């Protein structure tokens, strides 16, 4: 460790966001008043000079709670003009683009909600065509509109290929940030942080500074967890349906008192509530305290998650009516876009966050210096 500001490793990119984040973090590291808010500040105290990989790691630890912005003595108009949530937000968004492959798709979909809407339109067209052209001879429920095997043939690759791309990104992230050997205890610690969204607690448990300036609020944490656990329940619904289909030969449609519905209906409702809440918060929050350039892409991603859940619930409600066909096409199109864009949309944040939290758990406890 040296005070020399030249990092040991070659810069990862020539983008200006690293330079700005480095300038701000070096000022920050000489103050340390914010060390109680979240994981970023204790992690920062391990070093005096920050290589690009260090900044990438700090940026992915940051959950944009904004506590440090409102507590900061050095925000504009002060000449130091610190805005740590925005500086780290930029580095974070860039890291998701830089570590994606191909990068161009990530740059397009991370920042442009319109692009996501365009892809959705294409997917809708495809599925309406598929439902018309590939209508099976037999089948119950929505399998009357699209055969089970056809769905599997379409969705299994559409799900696994993006996951494979994300795995490559996380491997690169691990290299860039100097992550050590993966140990179970570190993964468990990361999962525990995410399960409680500890880094949005504000350090005092009253939440963060998002939608009402310098007042604390737990709404963002609540809506995020509704979304996250709702999503996991829906995922469990699909997984349990798959098991029932292949292991027990019990095919959809399933009644209300079956695992897929008991997971899926509450999960879907939670996702709709979470999406509505997150949209509302995002509209009220100050845009300049995050990576403003990706605001549109982030908003589109929340709306897409909400659409997946809402169309899924509608499809269930419409069982046996003439709306099943069109609703199936719409729902499948939403799910398809969500799957395909996993590596290129805000969806990757979950993977990067878990990686960052795991890397952090594997590092020695910060020692800090003397005041």
């Amino acid at each position, binding site marked *: 460790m040296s005070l020399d500001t030249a990092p040991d490793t070659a810069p990862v990119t020539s983008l200006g966001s690293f330079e700005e984040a480095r300038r701000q973090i*070096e000022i920050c590291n*000489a103050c340390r008043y914010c060390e109680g808010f979240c994981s970023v500040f204790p992690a920062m105290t391990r070093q005096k000079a920050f290589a690009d990989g260090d900044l990438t790691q700090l940026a992915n630890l940051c959950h944009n709670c904004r506590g440090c912005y409102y507590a*900061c*003595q050095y925000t504009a108009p002060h000449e*130091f003009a610190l805005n740590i949530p925005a500086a780290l937000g930029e580095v974070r968004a860039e890291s998701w683009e830089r570590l994606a492959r191909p990068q161009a798709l990530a740059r397009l979909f991370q920042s442009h909600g319109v692009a996501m809407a365009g892809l959705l339109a294409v997917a809708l067209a495809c599925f309406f065509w598929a439902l018309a052209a590939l209508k099976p001879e037999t089948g119950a429920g929505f399998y009357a509109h699209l055969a089970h095997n056809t769905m599997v043939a379409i969705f299994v690759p559409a799900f696994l290929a993006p996951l494979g791309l994300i795995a490559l990104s996380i491997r690169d992230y691990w290299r860039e940030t100097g992550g050590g050997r993966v140990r179970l205890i570190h993964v468990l610690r990361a999962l525990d942080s995410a399960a409680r969204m500890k880094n949005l607690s*504000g*350090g005092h448990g009253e939440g963060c500074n998002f939608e009402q300036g310098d*007042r604390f609020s737990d709404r963002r944490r609540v809506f995020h967890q509704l979304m996250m656990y709702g999503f996991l329940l829906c995922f469990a619904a699909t997984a349990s349906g798959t098991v029932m289909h292949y292991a027990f030969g019990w095919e959809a449609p399933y009644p209300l008192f079956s695992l897929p519905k008991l997971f899926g209906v509450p999960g879907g409702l939670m996702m709709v509530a979470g999406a509505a809440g997150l949209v509302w918060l995002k509209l009220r929050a100050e845009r300049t305290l995050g990576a403003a350039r990706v605001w549109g892409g982030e908003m589109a991603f929340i709306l897409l998650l909400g659409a997946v859940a809402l169309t899924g619930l509608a499809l269930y409600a419409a069982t046996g009516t003439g709306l099943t066909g069109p609703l199936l096409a719409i729902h499948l199109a939403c799910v398809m876009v969500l799957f395909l864009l996993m590596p290129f949309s805000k969806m990757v944040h979950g993977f990067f966050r878990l990686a960052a939290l795991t890397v952090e758990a594997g590092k020695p406890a910060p*020692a800090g210096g003397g*005041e």
Partner: protein
Amino acid sequence: MKDWPKTFDLAVVGGGNAALCAAITAAEAGCTVLILEGAPQPYRGGNSRHTRNFRCMHRQPVFPLTGAYEEEEYLHDLMLVTKGKTDEGLARLAIRSSEECLPWMQQHGVRFQPSLSGTLSLSRTNAFFLGGGKALVNAYYNTAADLGVTVAYDAQVTHVHLDGDQITHLHADIAGVPVTVTARAFVLASGGFQADLDWLARAWGPAARNFLIRGTPYNRGVVLRDMLDQGAESVGDPTQCHAVAIDGRAPKFDGGIVTRLDCVPFSIVVNRDGDRFHDEGEDVWPKRYAIWGRLVAAQPDQVGYALIDAKSIDLFMPSVFPPVKADTVEELAAKLGLDPAPVRRTVDGFNAACRPGAFHPTELDGLGTEGLAVAKTNWARPLDTPPFYGYELRPGVTFTYLGLKVDDRAQVHSEAGPIRNLWAAGEIMAGSILGQGYLAGFGMTIGTVFGRIAGKEAAAHVA
């Protein structure tokens, strides 16, 4: 001049910790309150926004404090730093009342954290604000808003009108518009005069113009001067200010905490002429950093230069600006704007006076020089391992001592006796208790205790 359309029960001059504690206390007692904060909203909170903790008496461990810190030990610590220059009655009042402040602060939105990196030595005596002083200030402004307190920002009070034994009204420039404010009671919590460089220069001498001001540029002492001119009783040495040695590249105002440098014990410090002038290893830095402001202020051009080599560069907290770096002592001197020859001579003399022995950066290791006119009594290791690093040091003023004398009800007095509806709290009256030196976190204790007293007394007066 316009009149404020409403007469308030209480007008509070200032917008930092003491002002907010007074305003909240009075508003909770049912008063209508106006806060006149001289700074625009982004800079509200005076020097409180730069603070980090408050020193708190307690009899047993209570979050976030460890152990116990009782009245006599607290007073003893205060006596040590002030060398007895304190009003013991007021000091004991501040110390005793600090105990009940901790829960009061939490009830009014302040959040604490256990001491973490580098501040463990204070975990028993000082309660750290989560997020620091600006987070505290934000919490109090939100509490005040919920209580219906009116806040005028960019409201510089120019005159507080004393008529006989009471204040009748005050004049303020609010966003550039002259306004007359009438109220039944007044609390002055507008800080010291350290940001008025002309006043500092008159008090200290022209050298003061080279000082840096660590805190807010809005503490210009206008109300303090106005009250003294009207015969209010004063306390504290009018010529003195509290200064520490900080990074010479810091902004003229408002550099705050990040401009501190902890490198002196592991450095040799020379002046403009390349000469050492004081024992850099006298004691651990927290006990000595305060005297270095004065030491540097006494040097030509009020500047010093700390010289470090590669052995010691990682022994202290990171600096906000990277140090000047060079491969030789001569090159370092030149980069710092010093004549290389005398610096080389000083370094050679110092290196020759160093003795072998065990070096322990965290304790007084007794590793001293021999035979130097200005000895270094601990941590003396030769400056011989490149690269070499240098920091420019300048005095950074924290606060001034001259203030209004108050009694144990925070009431301000004139020669004729107490001014019936005027109280003072915070830095403007801290000289009553802190006559010299400084005790970490005690400024916030004085502000909280006397702010609450002033608010309570003002509310009782108008009831």
